[in-house]
Every structure is written in C-alpha cells, then in structure tokens.
C-alpha cells in the first residue's frame, strides 16, 4: 500500500513540473514578439527621461549655479545652493541618465532596430549623447563606452575619451540619417510620431546631430583646440546643415498628464523655485523684452510688481523668512501653458537655433572655416531668440549703454551686491575678442534660458556671463567663492557599491580631489584666447 502511495507521489512530483515555466511567466508582461511590435513607442518616454528627477538632478544644482534660478525653500538651510553639496540630490544627476536613458537605449541596440532601422538607432544615439553629455559635464570622467560591460565594476573613462566617443556616436547617427534620407526621401523615421522631439523627421534630427557636434566641439576648445576645430569645422560644413530657425528648435513635448518639470518645481511645488538675482539684474538692466516672458513680478506686499529675484546661496532662512518669506519674490512666468518657458505643458528645450547662432559667432571669433561673420551670427542669435519668445526687438540690438544692474535684497541687505558686469548689448567690431566673447556668451545665456545645465557648462568654460558669487559658502573650503563651483562630486553610492575601486581610479583621471572645486578636463584655467 505504502509502495503504491510512494509511487503515486513520485509520479505527482515528476509528472507535474512540466507546467512550471508556464506558471513562472508573468501574465502581465509582453512576449518577445509583442515587445518587438511596440518598439516604435519606446523612444518618446526615453526622451522625456533626459529630465528625470528634474528638481534634484538639475534644478537644485545647474539651474542655480547658472544664475538663472534660486530656491526660496531653504531645504534645511545647508544645501547645494550654498555649496554644501547634497549627495542624495547629486546622485540623481549621475544615476538617472544611466538607468532611464542609456539602459533602455542599450536595449534598443539589442533589438532589431539597430539593423533594420539604422536611422532610428541614430536618433537613439543622439538622445544618449544629449543625456550623457549632461552627466559628464556635471561630474567629469564617467563610464560611457564601458557602460554595460560589467554587472559589478565598470571602468570610468577620461572626459576626453568620453567626448571622443560622443563625436563617434554623432558620426554614426549622422551617417545613418543621411543614408536613410537618400534612400527614403520625405519618409519619417521608424519611430514616427512616437518621437516627441521631431515626430521622426530625419532631416531635423540630422540638423540636431550637426548642431550638437558644434556645441560639444566648442566645449573642448580650451582643452583640445585641434579636435575642437576639426569637429567644429566638420559641423559647420556638414551635409544637412545646422539648426537655423525657430522651427528647427529641439524640445521634448509633454504627453498625457506629464507636466513641464520646471512648472512642477516652480508652481506645483508651491514656490520651490524662483528667479535668480543674476538673471533679474541682466534682464532688468538691459530692458530686455524677454523679461516679462521669462519672469513674473514679485507678489510681496513690500515690493509688489517689481522684478526682484533671489541671490544664489542666499540664506533664505534668515530671520525666520524661509520659503514663505521668499516665494513672494519674482518667479518664473508660467502664464501661457504652451508658450511660457515653464508653461505647464511647454516642451522642454534640448537645443535651439539661437544657441547655434551664438556658437557660430564664437567660431567666427576663433577663425573656424565656415563660421561666417561674428556680428551677423551674434545679431541673428539675438533676433532668433526674440522670435522664439514672440517679442519684438525694438532698439535692443543698438543699445550700447544698458548694463547689468546691482542687486538689492529688500529683506536681507547681506545679500546685496554691486553689478559684476559692464558688458553692453550692441556689437562693437573694435572690441577685443575677449570683450566680444563676453558679449556673445552673455547673450547666449539670455537666449538659452531655461537650459541651466548648458548655461552652467558655458559659464565654467568661458567665465561668462559674470555672475554674483554665492552669498554664503558652506563647502568647508573645498570650493573657492570667487571661482565658484566647478563640478559635482560623485555620488557616495559609487563608493559604496561594486564600483568603488573604479571610482577611485576616476578621481585620478579627474586630476584633483572629488569635490566641487576641481575643474573638469574642458574647464581649463587659462585665458579664452
């Protein structure tokens, strides 16, 4: 009897495990073929992820360091804005682009897209370069071509190697797009309307590829002038051309219930973000027509109707003021959901034609072949930006007297600061290259708002526009108040996880201590010319 029982048990156990794989297949997930059928839809969300975790990944660092914005919220009083760098915030700027952009793009690379729709693979590579250039420009050496090579410890690469790889990836993207356009004239890319930047238009992506090459080339002009010139001139003469008009601008559209990240931080988070003193003093000093588009007047009963921003690193908990005391200062303008730079549904800018004109203006100063005339490029840059925001130039281009104003904080005189810049708007052919560079970068800074990441990078490269120093510096001596913050430290998770040996090697590649005072490879401490 027991033998029978035992035999039936054995049969039970050995007979029934054949359904196990079926049981262990998640009924809510996609089969490989279903997955392939949906590949088109994958790119849009990845494009949006460039702004993942926006508040801590960008707003509370680059947006403030660029002088554009400042948080009324003291966030405990000691934080990034006054150079006490918050590891938890800064890790978002590092980790998220790997997790939410590069990792899924590596999956696209493993799919049939790479072979069957090379132009779509090219677009994916451009999205990846835009995401990862933000990371290397914050931290310095990062794993890039090595990413995904190990589950545990991934070697970092020097920033030069990373930039070289960016140029190679732009090469692949541009070649694939060109070949596709030749073979399929007028036809949208495989991604089609799933692409939230250009709805799959390969011609525009090619322009963006060339423009991105010019941006990255200019970034390394002091560190590696020959590569910069080579890549810059390649961009200036590249088939397909550059972003030239407002219609070419690259921005990620919102979809569904997704809202503009700066709107979320500024409006939905009830004033976690406001206008920075630097941007206020330039816009007001220049009588800039973009002032009412970018900013809205203060609502504080003490100075209602005036444009008064907050100085970077201001002690906003001074005298118990806190967020409530400072959120009534000038904030960013969000009135028009679609048109304001931070409207609730406004697309999030990746790169504009105006920026390209200013890049060409600088290229002309540097004598790069194909750059054209510096003054024309400079003035076209300004007018393209004004068109972008639907304002008229008036006398703006001819204004040779207006300058940045001083800053006064009505609630805490300790934050007051004299103007730091005397540069004017009108092009001056007689001025030195250095003066004209200041003019170009200052206007570029006004034009590319609210892209704080690009503005902070260009500030570090050129020293322009001249910005107020932080009102208080809690870096413990690692960041010089005058030279200002140069980078973000690697997240402590890199020191705690499997990458800890590699991150130590990365610090050697960095060539200085892993803190906010160490300059990146392209941030060379020498004259611009």
């Amino acid at each position: 009897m027991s033998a029978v029982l035992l035999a039936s048990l054995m049969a039970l156990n050995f007979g029934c495990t054949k359904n196990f794989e079926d049981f262990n297949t998640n009924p809510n997930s996609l089969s490989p073929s279903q997955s392939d059928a949906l590949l088109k839809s994958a790119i849009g969300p990845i494009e949006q992820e460039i702004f993942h975790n926006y508040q801590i990944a960008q707003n509370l660092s680059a947006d403030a360091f660029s002088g554009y914005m400042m948080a009324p919220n003291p966030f405990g009083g000691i934080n990034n804005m006054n150079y006490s760098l918050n590891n938890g915030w800064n890790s978002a700027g590092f980790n998220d682009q790997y997790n939410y952009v590069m990792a899924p793009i590596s999956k696209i690379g493993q799919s049939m897209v790479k072979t069957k729709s090379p132009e779509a693979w090219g677009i994916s590579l451009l999205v990846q370069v835009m995401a990862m250039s933000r990371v290397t420009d914050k931290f310095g050496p990062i794993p890039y071509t090595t990413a995904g090579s190990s589950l545990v410890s991934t070697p970092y690469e020097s920033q030069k190697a990373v930039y070289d790889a960016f140029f190679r990836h732009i090469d692949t993207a541009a070649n694939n797009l060109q070949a596709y356009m030749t073979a399929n004239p007028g036809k949208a890319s495989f991604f089609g309307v799933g692409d939230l930047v250009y709805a799959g238009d390969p011609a525009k992506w090619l322009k963006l590829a060339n423009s991105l090459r010019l941006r990255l080339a200019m970034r390394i002009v002091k560190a590696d002038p020959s590569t910069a010139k080579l890549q810059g001139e390649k961009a200036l003469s590249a088939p397909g051309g550059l972003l030239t008009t407002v219609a070419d601008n690259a921005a990620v559209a919102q979809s569904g219930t997704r809202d503009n990240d700066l709107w979320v931080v500024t409006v939905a988070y009830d004033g976690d973000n406001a206008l920075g003193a630097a941007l206020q003093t330039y816009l007001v000093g220049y009588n800039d027509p973009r002032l009412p588009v970018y900013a809205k007047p203060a609502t504080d009963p003490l100075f209602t109707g005036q444009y008064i921003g907050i100085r970077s690193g201001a002690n906003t908990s001074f005298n118990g003021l806190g967020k409530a005391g400072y959120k009534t200062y000038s904030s960013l303008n969000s009135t028009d959901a679609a048109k304001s730079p931070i409207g609730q549904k406004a697309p999030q800018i990746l790169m504009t034609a105006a920026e390209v004109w200013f890049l060409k203006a600088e290229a002309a100063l540097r004598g790069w072949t194909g750059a054209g005339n510096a003054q024309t490029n400079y003035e076209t840059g300004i007018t393209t930006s004004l068109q972008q925001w639907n304002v008229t130039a008036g006398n703006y281009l001819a204004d040779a007297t207006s300058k940045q104003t001083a800053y006064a904080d009505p609630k805490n005189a300790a934050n007051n600061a004299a103007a730091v810049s005397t540069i004017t708007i009108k092009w001056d052919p007689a001025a030195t290259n250095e003066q004209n560079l200041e003019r170009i970068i200052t206007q570029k800074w006004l034009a590319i708002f609210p892209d704080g990441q690009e503005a902070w990078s260009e500030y570090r490269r050129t020293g322009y526009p001249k910005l107020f120093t932080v009102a208080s510096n809690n870096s413990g001596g690692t960041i010089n108040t005058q030279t200002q913050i140069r980078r973000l430290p690697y997240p402590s998770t890199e020191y705690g996880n499997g990458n800890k040996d590699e991150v130590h090697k990365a610090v050697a590649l960095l060539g200085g201590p892993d803190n906010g005072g160490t300059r990146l490879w392209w941030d060379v401490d020498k004259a611009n010319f």
Partner: protein
Amino acid sequence: MKKSLQLTCLLLYASTGLYAATPKDHFNRAVSFHAAYQDVIKGTVKDETGATLPGVTITIKGAQGGTQSNTSGQYSIAAKTGDVLVFSFIGYQSKEVTVGTQSTLDITLTPDSKNLETVVVTALGVKRSEKSLTYNTQQVSGEELSKVKSPNLMNSLNGKVAGLTISPSASGVGGSAKVILRGSRSVSGNNQPLYVIDGVPISNNGNANGQQNSIFGGGQDGGDGISNLNPDDVASITVLEGASAAALYGSQAQNGVILITTKQGKSGKAEIGFSSGVTIDNIAYEPKFQNSYGPASATTRDSWGSGISNTTDNLKDFFKTGVNTSNAINLSGGSEMAQTYFSYSNTYASGIQPGNKLNRNNLNLRETAKFFNNKLTVDGSVNYINQKINNSPSLGLYLNPLLGLYLFPRGVDITPYKDQYLLAGNEGAARQNWLGGPADINQNPWWLTNLNPNTSTRNRYLLSGSIKYDVAPWLNIQVRGNMDRTTDDYENRRYAGIATNFNSTATGYLSQSNQTYVQKYADAIANFTIPMTGSDFKVNGLIGGSINDQKTSGLSLAGNLSATDFFSPANTIVAQPGTFPGNTLTNVVPVIPNHSQLQAVFGNANISYKDWAFLTVTGRNDWSSNLSYTPNDSYFYPSVGLSFIVSQMFKLPEAITYAKIRGTYAEVGNTVPPYLTFIQNTLKADGALLFNTNKAFRELMPERTKSFEIGTDLRFLSNRINFSFTYYKTNTRNQYIPVIAPPSSLVSTGYLNAGNVQNKGFQFILGADVLKGQGLNWNTSINGSLNRNKIIDIASADKINSIDLTGAGNTSYISRLQVGGSYGDIYGYTLQRDAQNRIILGGDGSTASPYVPLKSTDFNYIGNPNPKFQLGWNNSFNYKDFSLSFLVDGKFGGQVLSLTEALMDEAGVSEATGIARNQGGVKIDGVDTKGNEVSATINPQSYYSFVGGRGGVSGEYIYSATVVRLREAALGYTLPLTGKTFKSIKFSVTGRNLFYFYKKAPFDPELTMSTGNGLSGVDVFNQPATRSLGFNLNVSF
C-alpha cells in the same frame, strides 16, 4: 448494508442531538442511549495535588456520549447504578469508577507515569510526545489567548512566548501585526512565520494595498490573514520556532511555524458556549506640546509667533473612545463516532480615529467522524469570514489626519475646522476649510476622516478535509487538502477639495481594487510504526508528498473624476493618454500577479531507545515553479536531532523530576519570488513599451537557512517548577537579494544569491506553581529571550556591502542592511562633530553669519530598533471562584526614531521648542570650522527648522526603545453552578496595555508603520497606542 446506512446517519445524529431533548435517528425513532431510570451523578475532578482539572472526559463504559469537566473541574453526567464511569485526561491515568448509590463522585486522577507524557502537535499536525522532541516548542492554550481579547489574535501572544517579537501595526482596528521568531533573516523576502491550521498551511496575505514602503505612506495597512480568525475557535497554539521544528514544512517555514489547533466537537453531551465581551480603548499617551507661543500670523500654520496665554487641547477634539465588542457562540456535541463543532462570532470595533470601524463575522463548521471500527477518520471543516474595515487610518506623511492635528498652531481654536470642514460653495482645494489652505502633508483632519473614506471588504473561505485510514496497527495513510480563497475589495474616494497633489483635476478621485488570492494545498502521508516487539528500539516515521499552489489575480483602477464627486469607475478620466495619437488606454490595471507552485516529497524517521534516547531525521525535496528556467528548481534539505531523557538514564536527586537535553541541526531551503527567471518587457501606463532592465547576475538558486539549537527541559519538585532553555544559531545564506546595481552596469535591479545573515541567542522559560493545593493557587512563569543579529555578508563577491530596505526618498530616514551591522539598522543625518565629538558650528558668530550647526553630508548609522532582550512575566492566581492574571513584559535596548517630533519641532508646537524659547535660544558648546571652541546660542526657530522636519538631522530624534509595560490583566469570577441548565458562567474584567513602567520614547516603540521588512523603528505620526479596558462574559450550557 446496515453499516453504511449508519454512516449516513452520523452527521444527522450529531446535529439533531444539539437541539432535540430526546435524540432521534432519521427514521424518527427515539434513540435511547441511556436507561430510563438514570440519575445525575455530579462531582469534581482533581489532580494528585488537589488542583481541579478542567476538560476531563467522562464517559460511560460501553455507551455512547459523555461529558467533560468544566473550568472548575466540576462535572455532571446521567448514569444509572452499575454503570462504569471512565475519567480520562491526557497525561493522566484513566480511572474507572462504578456508580453506586451515591450521587456525588469526587475523583482524583494521577499522572500517567512519573514522566509526564505531554503530547505536542508538531509539523504536519503529527502529535508526538513532548519528550521525544529534539527541539524547542511552546504552547499557548486557547483559554490563555482569549483571556484578554484583542481583535488581532497574534497580539494576544505578545509577551507570552520566548523568542517571539510581535509589533502591532499602528493602523487602528483591523490592522496587522509583524511577527518575528528568533530575529529577521531574509534580506528581501518574508520574515514572518508560516501559519498552519490543523496541519495545513493557510495564507497570511493582506489585501492589494499591502504595507507602506516609504515614510510618505499615504496608504492603509492591508490587514493580514491571521487576524481574520476567531480567537474563540482556537483550542491551542504551538509555536515551532526553529528551522528544525519546521523542516518538514519546507520553504515557507524557514521563519518558524505557528500551528493553530482549532476546536472540534467533543463526544458526549451537547454543549453550548457563549462569550461576550466589550472593550473600551483610549489613547495611552499624547505627544508633548508647548503652550506659550502662538502662530507668527493668523494665516500661518506654525507656532513661532508671540506669547499666548490660552492653552488648547486639540487632540481631545479629535480622538474618540474606541469600542470593541465581540460575541461568539459555539455549539459542540456528538458521539464517539462523530462530533460536530459549530461557531459563529461577530467582532465589531470602532477605533480611536473618527470613522475607523471593523465588522467581522466568522462562521465555522467542523465535522469529525470515524468509520469501519474507527479505522477511517474523516474530518472536514468550512470557515467563512466576512470582514469590513472602514476608514483604516493612513500612515505616514500623506493623507494622515494626525499631521494637521498635531502641527496646528498652539493657542488657536481648532473647533471651527471640526464643525465645518467643507466649504461647499467653493471649487477644488478651496472646498477644504483649513487654516492656510490644504497642503500635501497638512490637511484638515476632519476633512480627511470624512471626505477621504476607504473601505476594505474581505470574504474568505477556508475549506479543508482530511481522510485517515488505519491500514494496519503499524500503518496509517492520510490524505488532506484545503483551499484558502480570499477576495478583497478596496475602495478609496477622494472628494473634490483634497490637496492638489492627490487630485490634480480638483474634481475628486477614485481608486478601487479587487484581488483574489487562492491557496490550494494537498498532502498525502503514510505514518508507520515498525513493529519491533521485545526490542529496546522503537522506530516510527512518515513519508509523504505535498503540493501547494498559490495564485493572486485581480484588477485595480485609479483615476481622477470627470463629473465632480461622482464615484463610479465609468466617471474616471483615463490617466495617461498615450505617446501615440490614437492609443486607447484604460485606468484599469492588473494587480501584481503571482503564481507559485511548490511540490515536495518528505520523510521523517524517529528512533528511540529504551524510551530515553531519541533520534529524529527528516529530509525534504522541493520543486519550485519560481525557479523554473534554471536548473535549480529541485532542492533537498535535511535535519537531524537527538534528545536524551537524563532523568530516565540516570538516577537523579529526588528534587529533579524530569531532565532532558536536546540538540538539533537543520537546513531549510527557500525559493525565490516568481517571474524573475524569465525577464520580459512591460507596458507603461501610457501604452508605450517599457524595457525591463533588470537582470540576474547569475542563475538564481534557492536560499538556505542552516540552524542549530541545543537546549534542556527540566522539571523539579514533582513538576511544580519547570525550566526550559534553548541556545540557537541560524545562518541564512544564498539569499535572493535584489540589488541596485551600479547604474553604469545599465542594469537597474540585479538579482543574485548571496548574503549571510546570522541570528544567535537564547531563550528560556521558568515556570512554577508557587502555591498549589487548597485555597490560593499561584502560577507564575517568566520567559526571556536574547537575539543578536549580524549581517555577515551581503554580496561581497560582487562588492556589494549594503542594501537599503527603505530608501531615503528626500527624507532623513533609511533602513539599511550593512555588512557588520544588524537587521533593522536606521541611518539618518547627524550633526557634524569633530574627532572629540564636539559639534562643529558653521558661520562666524556675526549677525550676518550667525553660528549654525552643520548636517552630515551623508547618512550615518543612528540606531537599531530591535530589542536586545525581551522578558515576559505571566502570573495567574486562583482563589476559590476567583481568578486573577497579569502579564508584565519588557523589551530592553534598541533605539527608535520619531519624525513626528522632528516635524513638531519644525512647526514650533513641541514642548522642546517652548523650552528653548523660554531659555532664550538653543545653547551649543562646540567648535567653529577652524576648530576653536565656541559657545553659541542659536535662534530656536533657526535651530529647529534645521534639525527638525522630514529631511532634518534625524540623529537628534533617536530615543531609547526600552519599554516595560503591564500588558494584560484579567480578574475573573466563576459562578459556582452545578445546575442542569448552565454548566458555567464566568465574568471577567480585563485590561490591555494598562501601564508603562518605563518608556522614554515619545511614542510606543513597539508599534510599527509597516509589518514588512523596512520602515521599522520609525514613528511618522503613527496612531498612538491604546489602553484598553474590557468586560467579558463566558457562559456554557
């Protein structure tokens, strides 16, 4: 033929017998069990020491039926002269007495032998003599459990079992409880024990809400499965603590097993029990507020303004008196052939927060019958549970009424907001009447309790059956099966007016889910005893197989409303229109599915020598569907144990009645969660493809707990004193660990097997019948346990040495497992200090740059909430018809974090901020950043807005978790009845959590925000613990 006819009648006998004065069979003939001229024989049954014995079975030899002695040892039975009464009771020698002419028969029973033969229910429901066990078990009787009732059965075990740590959820009536035996060991899996009813496992699942996973919370405790049971149906609970005890149950039992034996019908006269109780709950403590300073302005929600003279007690306006009523009736009866047990109970409880209610109905029917000369035993039961919980409080920062309540400006009257929480004429968030308007973490408490209602409804069926056939005197075969089917419905309605981040359209919001969980279990076991007549050796054992299939399915829906406050799924707005034009989408998504099947074969052999040496060997092989797609889906694990009854091996001093030493080693394997071995992509809510970037580092395999324990059981002075001691050590290795891989790996979550979590410690029980005999009886017992947990390894081979159970998420709390640390470690921000531990102050002391303390840049270890040592002291006194019992327990050591205090400090409402202002500032003697000693007085508001708040310096909010309390007390009186109608009537007055002898934390450190692995030891506006007083009535007739 006649026999089979009888069989069909048995059930009817049993049930009709309950109602009919004269039992009849189904041919409607009077059945005469007893002679017509019988008398009632009464008496009291006592043991050899004179203590009364309840529950003694009294039968008439050769007749069907019988009775049992009541709680006072009294019995009455109808018998006639010449009948032989048989008195039998487990552990005692049966006694036969022939009825003479007397109508009173007082009986004294003597223990079975000088070695008390206690029978213990072990794994798979197998009953074994306690002395043959090679591991430690503890038993708690049903009577002990229901003495002071709690709506969750497990809370009644708190303090009564050594090595068991129970942390009730701070979530009001219907909340779950975290139950940990001998420390947590699984990094990412379940750490709670397996629950087994009458030999077969049941599920302990909560509803689709599950538990909170961050301090923001906002959801409700989904309840747990075990709390659904009716405590009155429980005959006893056996706790199998070690892996050894549980080895036969396999995977699910690596954290120990709680074996619940339910009541079944008794042969003999029909018996009806009725119990009724009412308990009154009030909050046991309040946070400490300041009463000297009011708000900065009439519209701000802080208390950093000028002095006030009036005081307010806003809490009094909010908290209510909770009332818990329970009524249970049970009917049992039957013959020696068939027994029936039927019970119905209702629990109705209202919590201390407005609107929080629990209503539970339990129906239970159990039939047991024997056939073919008692060779075939059939047992079946049906349990139906219906439970509805209204307005379970939200835990954490979000949607929790206690934030608005506690942080309300001092000195301001809150009652206008209570009287009118809805401004009906307004639209959107302006509908909520709240000082300064509703914000994400601060809303009108009454708005939340009235216009953010939630309901959880559970319907649960537990069907089980078993057939056992005695093939031969040395062999029986048993086949069992059960099905545990739970359907949970949940609904949350947010009316228009809630803070905008919970309803962006300002038109209202609806979320619903329904989830069905089905667990099917079946086993077949052959129990054998090898006949070895005349030998000193005895061998018995079992061999069997089992299959356990668990499946979760269901749908959930969530969305903002189109028409305001019209709560219908059809009125919800599709949450995320797609990236693609024309994508059709839905608000309805599947709940997290699960399908796991475990198949096993197992065997066990027990060899004894001369009844004083015992060897137990078990082996089990599992096949787990969760490990399919890998070669590791079959795994074997063994256990071996040895025990010696020293008191039978050697002649020991007279005082030692019984001495046993035991030791055991066991391994238990455990599988991984489902759906990890075959990685597939999914869809985003907006219809776009979402790549799954998770990856197994290496092929997954089962985890393994290796456990070792040794111990002794001693009894002295004819069993009046007993002592039991166990030392144990467990190491859980090869754990399934999901790791956050370095992001540059391009893998988001990496799956691997690694880790070594060690728990070692000891536990003891010392019990004594201090006074026994006539008059006053006093039984006392002390249980104690010490556990040391150590994270020896996480995944050092992959250079991963820590893993976060609860991430920081923009707050100052992390629950982190770090190599060298221990389970539950709390990490937070601390003040920066120099090498001499002096506080470093930033600034230069000038007006422009005053001295400020500095926050650590990274998270540091700040405490561990687990008690270092636990002690429970249980006492019961009996004097004539009175009984008194009380339980004092202490949990010593450990630290807990109060973010409640941190937020109260930030808002300036706490007592600490009042004291600081009275003193003119917060005085800190520290050093400046250059290392010079400085003495600073810091503006209190600056200081507390820096250290306080959810992201402040959490290291300043660590409190001792030591707590010593009077957990339970009960005073009972049994009416001395010997009448025919009532067998017994007992009244009792009970109390729970009556008094804290010692508590330094500003909350009850035992309460937990989540019964999962993370979020332990942190108070985020948890509902305060309650003090309960109750009255119970038990009647049997």
